[in-house]
């Protein structure tokens, strides 16, 4: 531990004594790799904006999976360029989504395999919190240290998040509205984490300042970029005739009445002894993925089920309260 502290001090010193320019430069390089994301929200205290991190030179943006992404989000780069984006993949259990914009040769954060971040490490947090920066204005930079690397007390519902991995607890007030998806970088300018959504301790009312370690996200981001997993819906041709494919009824699902353009795929009722009942699906479960493909509403759910042969298993990923559960329905 003394070794770690020595490193921490060395870093503080390199920031402090070797004068300001390096810190300002690191900050600037970080800012160029952080984007502003605009999407759904704007009502009832739900901000319609958040932050994102460029993770490939070809326009892949890692960000927090949130309601902001309920519509195809707009991405604004640090240089002011504005892009429509598509959601190429997301992992609900990590609260992670990866967007893609049509651009190349962008500055980006490589997510290095061997990167250790520990308590005491000085960090910069870069995000567009409170949407202070607009257009080409650079994102906000904050400094602090990692206070702890710890498990999140989420399973017992203290923090309402499906994320179950380690988090870096920060000593700065980084997780403000709009900060989710922002970058946490170390004193070398390397990406070590992504700021998470605002979380509040349900018992004490205290707001948590934390970041999800980059190494927890690395594999999934890599898989999504490489196309090994994608949640983007497949082309429409793959549909089977109605009487040969699945639909909610064949599985024993009664969905919430479909009244909106994208009614969330909440289960209203489960027919006893059906495939759904056997898999222990319950009312109020939200279907997030079918066979790894994103379900952005009931229409998409029906479409995805149309592509699965009635005799085949159906893989679902659902959210039940703060838990993300993978389930297999056997007909």
């Amino acid at each position, binding site marked *: 531990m*003394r070794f770690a*502290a*020595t490193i921490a*001090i060395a870093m*503080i*010193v390199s920031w*402090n*004594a*070797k004068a*300001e320019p390096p*810190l*300002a*430069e*690191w*900050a*600037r390089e970080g*800012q160029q790799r952080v984007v502003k994301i605009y999407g759904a929200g704007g009502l009832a*205290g739900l901000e319609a904006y958040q932050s994102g991190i460029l993770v490939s030179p070809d326009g892949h943006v890692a960000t927090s999976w949130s309601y902001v992404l309920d519509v195809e989000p707009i991405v604004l780069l640090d240089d002011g360029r504005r892009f429509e984006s598509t959601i190429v993949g997301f992992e609900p259990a990590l609260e992670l989504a990866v967007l893609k914009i049509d651009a190349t040769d962008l500055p980006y954060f490589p997510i290095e395999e061997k990167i250790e971040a520990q308590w005491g490490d000085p960090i*910069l947090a870069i995000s567009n*919190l*409170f949407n*202070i*920066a*607009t*257009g*080409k*204005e*650079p*994102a*906000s*930079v*904050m*400094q*602090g240290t990692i206070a702890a690397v710890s498990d999140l007390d989420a399973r017992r519902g203290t923090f309402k998040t499906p994320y179950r991995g380690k988090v870096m607890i920060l000593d*700065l*007030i*980084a997780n*403000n*509205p709009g900060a989710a998806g922002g970058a946490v970088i170390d004193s070398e300018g390397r990406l070590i984490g992504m700021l998470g959504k605002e979380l509040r301790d349900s018992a004490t009312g205290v*707001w948590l300042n934390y970041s999800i370690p980059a190494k927890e996200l690395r594999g999934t981001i890599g898989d999504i970029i490489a196309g090994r997993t994608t949640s983007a819906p497949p082309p429409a041709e793959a549909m089977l005739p109605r009487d040969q494919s699945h639909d909610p009824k064949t599985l024993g699902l009664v969905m919430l009445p479909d009244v909106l353009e994208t009614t969330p795929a909440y289960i209203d009722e489960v027919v006893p002894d059906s495939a759904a009942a056997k898999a222990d699906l319950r009312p109020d479960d939200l279907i997030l993925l079918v066979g790894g493909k994103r379900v952005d509403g009931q229409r998409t759910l029906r479409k995805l089920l149309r592509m699965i042969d009635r005799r085949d298993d159906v893989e679902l990923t659902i959210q039940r309260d703060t838990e993300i559960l993978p389930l297999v329905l056997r007909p």
Partner: protein
Amino acid sequence: MSPKRLFQSVVVVLALLIAPSTHGIEPITLDPILESAELERIAAIDLAKPTAVSVFVPGGAGGGSGVLISPEGYALTNFHVTSPAGSFMRCGLNDGRVYDAVIVGIDPVGDLAMIRLLGRDDFPYAEMGSSRAAQAGDWCMVIGNPFLLASNLQPTVTWGILSGVGRYQYPSGTLLEYGDCLQTDASINPGNSGGPIYDSSGKVIGIVGRASFEKRGRVNVGVGYAISINQAKNFLGYLRSGRIVDHATLGATVVTDPDGGVVVSNILDTSDAYRRGLRYGAEILEIDGRIVQTANDVQNILATFPNGWRVPLTFRYEGKTTNTLVRLMSVHLPDELLEKMAGALPPPPPRQAPKPDQEEGDKEEGDEKKPAESIPDKLRKAIAGKANPKYPKAVNEQLVSRKGYANYHFNQVQQERFRNALRSQFPGGKAGESVAWVIEAETDQPQPQQVQIRIGKDKTELVVGEKTFEATSRGKLYDEVVDGSVAGMLPALDAWRRMIEKGPQKFGETFYLGSMPLAGERPLRDCMVGLDGELEVRWMSHPDSELVEVVEVFADRDEDPAELWVIRENGDEQPSILDLRYGLDSVLRLKIKSWQQVPAETAEAQPEEAAE
């Protein structure tokens, strides 16, 4: 524990961590880099701390922070800190003493106020840095009075970095607009308002003013904003005038073009910008030498200027790029600002009622408000009232109430300075001494024409070659300026002569406006305004030499004024050239051969002889 001690002990703790544990009794040695970094920080804090002011509103009605900027005790703070106090407040310094302070000038739009601490002429004061040089990631510190904790007069130091520069924060209505401001993650809490933010060497780079507060209550959430010190520098002269000052607008609205650039979407045809050729659809390229690309950029720059400033503007219209100078208009009509100020202040809190809930949104902070005396009453008193018997004598000696002023006393001080400067510089004169000026000159042309100017008590005359311009009435002079005539030189010289003779009090309504660039150039010149019937005359003087460099005469507000440029060469105090300009064009440029003062009667009696 004082911040110094705190940092020292942090150093010790860190040192213990790196020191070999087996040698606990050995003297602690520090990594020299670490040691020098910490010593630099301690030195910066030691340098800055004596200049930070804890502002308390007498009667426990709140307070905030401030920063001393001159040895005479002038200090900057926020308008929203001084407004509950009115004219008088008490200020603590870290020397452990409390000083009476009087209001000097206020800027309700920019949320700035100048106050003067009394009782010393050797106050410690902060050196001003440049907020333009600041960048995101720079270390910075905030020193002030959060939560009004400084009951022992020791301010609180918080340390952080600049999170952003050149930020724009929307005003509430047209007041409290923060343009080109600094954003920091150093802790800013209620009570820090008005206090300084310093760079890591202890130079002040901004005045802390507000913070983003949302659902987490009125405490720091890592996002505080400071008015840039460069904006404050622009306003120092205006604030020293004791006036309630206003901000500038171009007289045009702009939008960010989706294809890039910022274009004029609407323009007043009475604005100076319009007279200089700015039109609907023109693309604005630069303001005051700074490149603009978005509507936010434009407002970010304009928001930092006082009204009446004349700044360089570059725009492109119909393929042609124009570099010009524009006079900026006021954001508010003359009485509009006073009304808005009264309206913007919180209503008097009902007695014993709980504090109104204001937790939502982006708020100015700084006022740990307790139920106080009705504020509009105070404002009324400040505007119209007389010396307050409750105030200390020293405060009342430097406090004169007058409509449109926070404190007319400080304007009187500037008027006196102007009067003395005017009488002691060429051509000079004494109070009440009626002289006439006779100026012999020739035009600055390849084939010069002879010129004679006579500025007498009842008659002014300009003879250029064969042509004679004569004015015996103010109305005639007014017309010459409206017409853009060469005789526009006459009202300028006439006003100058009479100002020397009569002084500011008897000239007509006279006031010190503040300091502004001369035709877009710095250093900022002192600007004195005299209302001469329908004419408004402005004297622009160099801040160091106090020599008059330009006399401007405005007839119609919506037309170019006559500008008489008084040009001195070779360091002479006596002018060698007079140049009359309208807009950017010179209409008459004269080389002075002689400039004499003669008894008034002589000049009036023998005009023909002198004119040959």
